């Protein structure tokens, strides 16, 4: 048992919510809801995660120890060629893999960080970025989540500290605060191996906080993963990442689980502290839809924001119809600073949820809750 804390909310009308329920509290869940059934649509047998392929693509005649001395422009050119699998499948001892190359590029990115929509340009080896992070990444107690979208449930959840957004309704402030938890690295695999529930996981999810800002450490950790690991890698992010982040994780992530929080910049500024959320999130979707990875867009229905945010977001998502899956989250509970915002200091109404669902249907967006095995089919 992980021994982690589990957060619960009890609304005034008596509804009980367990936040991020895991296999470690399945007994509790069964006592509260005897009819609870774990919904899971795992990937097909023999599934090979993208990062395992990427670590087997080699850059000819570039030894891994030579990567640090090559200039960045050349590294990016090699990266793009390798992504297109332009190289013959031949390698010699010490040839750098595409994953090695990505790690080198990610390290360089940290020297002038532009991983998130802030593009703060901070040298994270010397100071902390807007996300509150230096070069290292830290994670909270891992657990196996039992109530994510069925296609990624149950999933081993790695919650990383740090986030570039300051959402007033954040439920995860405890893990987004940068504090010395466990440093992400090769030790992750020992931690997971010693978790009695990990063998039942059907996916490996990096969440947070927000994982984008920890991309370098994630790549390094995956480079040390057991060769036998066959779980799809899920990146559960806030939708506020830069194009360079998506390039670095192309060929590594199998499922992008990205928020699309707002439909206008005024709400993004007021509630998450960023003035360009919509533009950044739209560009992010263009990037993920250009990859082999699946994209699930999560939309948390906020009270009072159906018209200004969710309707407009759905209109934007319609452009990506057929390439994305939609996950509508209808269980908002005010948290953190939400009580200081009169519009957010209430539960979302049934009418608001119905309106968002009907609107999503009218745009022909696919609901991931209705996805079966077709989710995992190659396109």
């Amino acid at each position, binding site marked *: 048992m992980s021994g982690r*804390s589990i957060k619960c909310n009890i*609304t005034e009308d008596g509804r009980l919510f367990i936040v991020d329920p895991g296999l470690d509290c399945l007994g509790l869940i069964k006592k509260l809801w005897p009819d609870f059934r774990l919904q899971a649509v795992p990937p097909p047998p023999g599934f090979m995660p993208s990062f395992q392929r990427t670590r087997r693509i080699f850059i000819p005649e570039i030894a891994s120890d030579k990567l640090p001395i090559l200039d960045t422009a050349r590294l990016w050119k090699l990266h793009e060629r390798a992504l297109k699998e332009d190289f013959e499948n031949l390698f010699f001892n010490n040839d750098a893999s595409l994953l090695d190359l990505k790690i080198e590029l990610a390290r360089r990115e940290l020297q002038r960080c532009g991983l998130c929509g802030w593009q703060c340009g901070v040298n994270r080896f010397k100071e902390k970025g807007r996300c509150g992070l230096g070069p290292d990444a830290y994670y909270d107690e891992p657990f196996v989540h039992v109530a994510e979208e069925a296609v990624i449930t149950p999933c081993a959840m790695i919650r990383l500290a740090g986030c570039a957004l300051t959402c007033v309704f954040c439920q995860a402030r405890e893990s987004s605060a940068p504090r010395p938890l466990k440093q992400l690295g090769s030790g992750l695999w020992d931690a997971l191996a010693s978790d009695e529930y990990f063998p039942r996981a059907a996916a490996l999810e990096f969440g947070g906080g927000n994982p984008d800002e920890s991309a370098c450490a994630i790549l390094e950790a995956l480079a040390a993963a057991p060769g036998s690991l066959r779980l799809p890698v899920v990146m559960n992010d806030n939708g506020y990442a830069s194009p360079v982040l998506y390039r670095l994780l192309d060929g590594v992530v199998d499922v992008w689980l990205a928020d699309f929080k707002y439909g206008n910049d005024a709400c993004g500024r007021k509630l998450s502290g960023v003035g360009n959320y919509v533009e950044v999130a739209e560009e992010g979707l263009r990037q993920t839809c250009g990859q082999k990875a699946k994209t699930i867009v999560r939309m948390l229905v906020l009270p009072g924001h159906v018209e200004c945010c969710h309707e407009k977001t759905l209109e934007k998502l319609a452009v990506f119809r057929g390439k994305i899956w939609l996950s509508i989250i209808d269980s908002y509970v005010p948290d953190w600073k939400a009580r200081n915002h009169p519009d957010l200091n209430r539960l979302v109404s049934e009418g608001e949820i119905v309106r968002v669902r009907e609107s999503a249907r009218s745009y022909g967006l696919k609901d991931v809750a209705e996805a079966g095995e077709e989710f995992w089919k190659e396109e």
Partner: protein
Amino acid sequence: MSRSIFIPLRRTDPFLRRFGAVIRRLELEGIGVKHAAPEMGIAFEPVSVDFSGLPDNMFQGEILYALKQSLSPEQTASLCLLEGAAAKSGFAIEQKDQDHSCETALSLVLKPSESFGELLGTSFEETKALPPASEDLDPISQMLRAGRKERALEAVPHGKAQ
């Protein structure tokens, strides 16, 4: 034995002001309550509650009962169900997470029961020795008699962080 706890109350928060019911209940019981520590900040009104003279094992039951009195009947019913299920599953409600609670929801944290009682200042051994609440004071019995069990059981687990 003299024991005390701090109950931080945000003056501006309507939900948390209802925790004042806890204090009033304690005062009615003749338990010393003194307002203290203004240096902790103007947003808070910490009170120190002196439990000297009370039997140790009354401590937690009194607080939980008084807390329940400040909740809606539906919240109380769900809290009672949660308490029971948590206790049978190796968890305990360690902390009333007041800083994250708001008018529309009570936020709680469950921890493996080894740490139960730390917040309230009681040791685990003391906590285990607590007697069950008498039925005439037990809100769960009142709720169940009032037929509200079904309402609370309609709840569904929620998995996705926001």
